């Protein structure tokens, strides 16, 4: 039993719903009690989906238990197939139905439906959302592509590929597909099937016809891609094209599998991240400490972009996706940080505080943590919220994705010259953290709320053993440091003082610490 206040992933049946909701002409009959329909609003509210997700819930009640829950499932399944006329139906149990062991797969078989039934085993008390999505996608591909013979191709026909992994509620998947297709079009590689997003069960039967697969989101499609490698000898492009370097690698990898020249795709007029990052204004980005957390794919990609393309310093790297912990561990080793593998948001928060980052890249939860700590932040991964489905085109992948990343990670930071001015004129009353915006002074009745002067009168605390205290003049000097880095300066100084065995921090200690931590 685990006490949970907030969770990064839902139960596995929500993962199955994401696959069902991604596809066309597929319906999911979920054996579940009243209340589990809440999951519909993830799609209709967060994603602003215009139709209800294609899911029928059996809604059994306490009085049905031990009686006719199996019959309720059969009725719901039969009615759903008749009403929605899907090409195929997924059947499965939510956590409560798993306990009553009705076997939806077996029950559906007895109905003699004229369409294929894909039974799902979703162990709710062991697994989570992404696992459920990956398992469902794999079962669908196995069910529909299994046993097919690839169609013969004419000699010299252009190479084709499948794009695997984009889903409903995936971070920017909608736009990533467009961006990846642009690259493939330049290379002259045809897209055979994109799945699960937008595919029908019939489309899945055509998957074996492609020459290779592009694995965009391993969390969702790795299981399926590995099976396709074994079953149809389809190679997999595993580089996820997030950032300029990864996009280049992706293009080369695809070009090699397709036997085409990568050059036309590599020369992009529209890619601006490289120049923006080289331009002198971006000097101030150098060594900014960035804390990264999310699903494994986006977190690993973000770390690479942060260090190698923006010149940041990765000061923390973590994921909730335990299945992909190995990827995070090897990336963490490369950037010389401790990998953080946890799905406890409080532990992530503690790690953020300890790392003292200047920028946080994470999920919606880390965005909230960062806002609370007044650290600039940007969202890079699911779980996400309604504002992470922007109306405008904003991919993460490809060259336009790199442009979007530059803007969305750099804009939250204090800009270059602005930062210098803040440092130069740190005593300026308008730069104080208590200062109201100067254009609002008229309605605020004064631009500054004086901090209580009481500490001036307080005698310096006698230094006890092992207890740090600040001399008044050091405390005053500390206040001259801009508020958004003051916390860090305080912590650094205290850490330095403790290390040096200094118990009373003076102005000297403050500047000694500054020199010690200088980079």
């Amino acid at each position, binding site marked *: *039993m*685990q*006490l*949970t*206040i*907030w*969770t990064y*992933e*839902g*139960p596995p*049946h*929500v993962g199955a719903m994401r696959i069902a909701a991604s596809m066309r002409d597929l319906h999911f009959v979920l054996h579940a*009690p*009243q*209340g*589990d*329909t*809440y*999951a*519909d*609003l*993830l799609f*209709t*509210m967060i994603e*602003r*989906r*215009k*139709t*209800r997700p294609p899911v*029928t*819930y*059996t*809604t*059994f*009640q*306490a009085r049905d*238990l031990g009686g006719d829950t199996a019959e309720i499932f059969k009725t*719901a399944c039969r*009615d759903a197939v*008749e*009403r929605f006329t899907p090409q195929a139906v997924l059947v499965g149990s*939510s*956590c*409560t139905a798993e*306990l*009553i062991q009705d076997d939806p797969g077996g029950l559906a078989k007895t109905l003699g439906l004229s369409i294929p039934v894909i039974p799902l085993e979703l*162990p*709710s*008390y*062991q697994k*989570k959302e992404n696992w459920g999505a990956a398992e469902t996608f794999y079962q669908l591909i196995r069910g529909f592509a299994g046993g097919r013979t690839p169609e013969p191709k004419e000699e010299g026909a252009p190479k084709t590929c499948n794009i695997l992994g984009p889903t409903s509620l995936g971070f920017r998947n909608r736009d990533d597909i467009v961006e990846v297709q642009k690259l493939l079009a330049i290379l002259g590689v045809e897209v055979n099937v994109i799945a699960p997003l937008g595919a029908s069960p019939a489309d899945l039967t055509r998957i074996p016809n492609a020459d290779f697969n592009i694995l965009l989101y391993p969390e969702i499609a790795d299981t399926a891609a590995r099976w396709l490698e074994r079953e149809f000898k389809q190679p997999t492009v595993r580089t996820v094209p997030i950032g300029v370097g990864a996009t280049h690698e992706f293009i080369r990898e695809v070009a090699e599998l397709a036997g085409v020249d990568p050059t036309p795709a590599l020369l992009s007029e529209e890619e601006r991240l490289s120049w923006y990052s080289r331009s002198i204004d971006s000097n101030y980005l150098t060594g900014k400490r960035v804390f990264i957390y999310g699903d494994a794919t986006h977190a690993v990609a973000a770390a690479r972009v942060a260090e190698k393309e923006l010149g940041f310093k990765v000061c923390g790297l973590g994921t909730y996706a335990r299945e992909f912990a190995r990827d995070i561990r090897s990336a963490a080793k490369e950037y010389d940080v401790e990998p953080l593998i946890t799905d406890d*948001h409080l532990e992530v928060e503690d790690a953020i505080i300890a790392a003292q980052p200047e920028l946080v890249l994470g999920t*919606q*939860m880390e965005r*909230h943590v960062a806002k*609370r700590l007044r650290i600039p932040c940007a969202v890079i991964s699911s779980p996400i*919220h309604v504002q992470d489905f922007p109306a405008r085109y904003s991919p993460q992948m490809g060259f336009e994705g790199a442009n979007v990343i530059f803007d969305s990670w750099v804009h939250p930071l204090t800009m270059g010259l602005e930062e210098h001015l803040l440092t130069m004129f740190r005593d300026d009353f308008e730069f104080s953290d208590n200062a109201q915006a100067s254009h609002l002074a008229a309605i605020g009745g004064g631009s500054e709320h004086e901090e209580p002067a009481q500490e001036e009168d307080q005698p310096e605390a006698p230094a006890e053993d092992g207890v740090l205290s600040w001399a008044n003049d050091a405390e005053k000097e500390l206040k001259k440091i801009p508020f958004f880095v003051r916390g860090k300066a305080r912590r650094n100084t205290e850490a330095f003082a403790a290390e040096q065995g200094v118990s009373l921090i003076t102005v000297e200690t403050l500047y000694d610490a500054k020199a010690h931590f200088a980079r």
Partner: protein
Amino acid sequence: MDAPDLKSAACGSSAAEPLRQRGQHEVFCGLTSIIWLHRKMQDAFFLIVGSRTCAHLMQSAAGVMIFAEPRFGTAIIDERDLAGMADMHEELDRVVDRLLSRRPDIKMLVLVGSCPSEVIKLDLDRAAQRLNKVHAPDRRVLAYSGSGIETTFTQGEDNFLTALVRDMPVQSETAPASLLVVGAMSDIAEDQFERIFRSLGLEDFSFLPARRSTEIPAIGPNTRYILAQPYLGTTASELERRGAQRIEAPMPLGEEGTTAWLRAIADTFGVEAERFDAITGPGRERAKKAVAHYRETLEGKRIFLFPDSQLEPSIARFLHRETGAEIVEIGTPFLHRRHTQPEFDLLPDTVAVSEGQDVDKQIDRCRAADPDLIVCGMGLGNPFEAEGRATKWSIELVFSPIHGYEQAGDLAELFARPLSRRAALEVAV
């Protein structure tokens, strides 16, 4: 899937003979009421004993992102518990100990049963008794079920209040008649009623749930209770079992409902008619004036209510009587005959009523009826809007202050806003 047939089926129904539906229920389970209960009772912690689904429901239903550590959480049952590798009661004690040691501010711990805990028959009442031996009297431990197999949305509050009533001390037999107002309302509405009660000369009154767990009143044959929420059937039975007597009235929504509700109280406590009129007069006038702003928008509009909070009959009554709307169908998850009778007395007999839900069939009926406004949950709202239909989220009816005179205008505005917004927009779907 024969829409006209289904429509006629609903049309023939009434409060006396509702269309009973057994199918997919597109409603929340009782756990969801924790979202307002934990705000209402500020020293209580609600610990759901359930699954990852329960935890995910709680954060999704309320759009909860955590700014401060909330006073609810989920003890997630895992495979070790189910396989018997861990003793679930010991596990629960461990979770509770950890929780209470971190949260000294918590004075009442509420163990909330879920679908999985009910199905595996985990006895939370017994767990509460055991924990009370350790933690009472400093901290009290209660248990109730908010499971979806037993409760719909607001019925979670019903079960919680029932547990509170069971825990109430016995009132002395010589105690003067006292008033108990039952059902969570917004603090602001509660404060307004408190002022009105005092002006009417009432002294001994209290609200359930109270804002602090330590303020639970005593109960006995001299208690007169009145419901401020219609969904409290079990609580009412428990109150009556403890000797309390019910004051019958429509819900205090809108000018008419609030006046009838206050009058029922005033009559019970022997307040003179003149005094009642003098005290309620200004509020009544303000409420009428505020609602009048929206009458133009809502008058003659055909409104279809999907089942959600059991507030549907009361809301329909308000919309029909005070804004001149026409009610197409009142869907409600559960129809409590006795408690809703005062509302139906004020509605025409021709209003179609359905109890329970088969959501696909209800959507068919709704499309066939083609109403001007659909009151429904968040899972259905955007899909209806995408079809070009106007909707109102029903969840706002439990998440915003709507009771009493000063909120009557706000209540009307909730329904007028989607219509006036549509009129204002020049973009279409």
